[in-house]
């Protein structure tokens, strides 16, 4: 089990405003890491750092940025976007095209394979804005898989989904993880995190509150507090 990400004493944020520091954790191949934390705790900054979009202020983050399949939070723009499912999934391959202005056969095949895997082949020609929330997330997940070599980074993927769609998506992600893909998920949902994740990283105001396996989290003091309050945002 190779280590894919190591984060040592990393501080994130801007020169004059650190949003999170003393981050220490590592992710090995096949892990399912859930990053918990309240709003403003620096989760999205951490995501950006992992993607290599925003370097850490200090400390060390070792991570192969390329090859991470990223599923960002939905934006307003996407809600009403006229694009077919196929167009969106294929755009996951763009990281590989460089300056080439078209997709190769292999890339198209990869996109088709990912759509098959997530059961959205039927929707291929549908318009993204006509899909349900759950279907939209699966489209974006397929796109992320096209870009992913062996790791997925999901930013609050179940936000705005109804409970059934949430469960389906969690199961889908868990299935992908079983197939050997490393999963890192930013989430609010502590119950689901404990249920599905293998590791948990909790960040509080400016600092790391917990890092360890899900089992350790459940038996830790902090974990129990948060589980009891249902992961409420108030500390």
């Amino acid at each position, binding site marked *: 089990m190779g280590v894919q990400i190591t984060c040592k004493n990393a501080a994130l944020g801007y020169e004059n405003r650190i949003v999170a520091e003393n981050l220490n954790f590592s992710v090995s191949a096949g892990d399912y890491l859930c990053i918990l934390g309240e709003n403003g705790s620096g989760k999205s900054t951490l995501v950006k750092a992992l*993607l290599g*979009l925003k370097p850490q202020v200090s400390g060390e983050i070792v991570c192969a940025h*390329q090859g*991470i399949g*990223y*599923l*960002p*939070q939905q*934006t*307003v*723009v*996407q809600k*009403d*976007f*006229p*694009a*077919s499912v*196929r*167009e*969106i999934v*294929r*755009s*996951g391959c*763009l*990281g590989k*095209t460089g*300056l080439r*202005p*078209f*997709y190769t056969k292999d890339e198209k095949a990869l996109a088709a394979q990912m759509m098959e895997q997530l059961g959205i082949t039927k929707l291929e*020609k*549908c*318009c993204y*804005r*006509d899909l349900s929330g759950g279907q939209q997330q699966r489209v*974006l997940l397929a*796109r*992320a898989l096209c*870009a992913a070599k062996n790791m997925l*980074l999901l930013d609050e993927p179940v936000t705005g989904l109804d409970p059934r769609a949430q469960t389906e998506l969690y199961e889908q992600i868990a299935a992908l993880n079983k197939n050997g893909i490393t999963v890192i998920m930013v989430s609010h949902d502590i119950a689901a995190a404990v249920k599905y994740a293998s590791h948990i990283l909790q960040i509080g105001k400016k600092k790391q509150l917990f890092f360890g396996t899900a089992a350790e989290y459940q038996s830790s003091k902090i974990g129990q507090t948060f589980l009891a309050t249902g992961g409420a945002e108030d500390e």
Partner: protein
Amino acid sequence: MNNLAKLADYFATYPFVRYAFVVGLLIALCASLLGVTLVLKRFSFIGDGLSHVAFGAMAVAAVTGLTNKMIIVLPVTVLSAILLLRTGQNTKIKGDAAVAMISVGALAVGYMLMNVFPSSSNITGDVCSTLFGSTSILTLRKSDVALCVVMAVIVLLMFLLFYHKIFAVTFDESFAQASGINANGYNLLIAVITSMIIVLAMNLVGSLLISALIIFPALSAMRLFRSFRSVIICSAVISVICAGAGIILSILFSTPVGSTIVVSDMAVFFLFSLIARCKGGRHA
């Protein structure tokens, strides 16, 4: 003499009618291609702001008495595009205010300059034709046509080469960035191309009506089509047809060119909205 024969005669007889068609259709094509991206990225306001900046720059160029106004207008507009994009990135509201400030400011300064240092005896005429492009499309010189063709080819090439990237950046900037696409670079490219088109389109419809040329075809296409590619193609077709029809109508019936094109764009928009509603799509 019926209108068709009259039109054919105009075509054969007057080089400026031919120029108007070549330039008008090319500008419409470029504007519509980019329009889809701008509308979807919620950048329509930048187009509007830039058109005012172009007006201001045009005024400065007129005052300094340059024969080739493009030398000033193009760089200034491109620069403002970059500036607007930069400010727009930080915070939304500040960006909006910046656009409003720059555009209204440019408008005021431009009009002021044209009045204080009149370059010709007919200020109202100059202002009016720059704002509404009354007939400037029919008064193009050969060099204008050449410049326009070159710029249109550049825009089209860029668009074809970077089509998929532009799609990705439009649909999901964060994802595009994460997959190693230089999203900011492409945003910049989009802004630069937009300003090029706006400068070109001032000849066709005048600076106040440029936004219409950019957004209407895209909005119409989005009523009916549901994939990015079909929206782009439909938008281009609508735009070219409307521009052609607008120019023909204005030549035959002596209506102002810019407004005729925009009105035909609007007509298509309402027609498409109606069709969408009749089809009962949930986005009608």
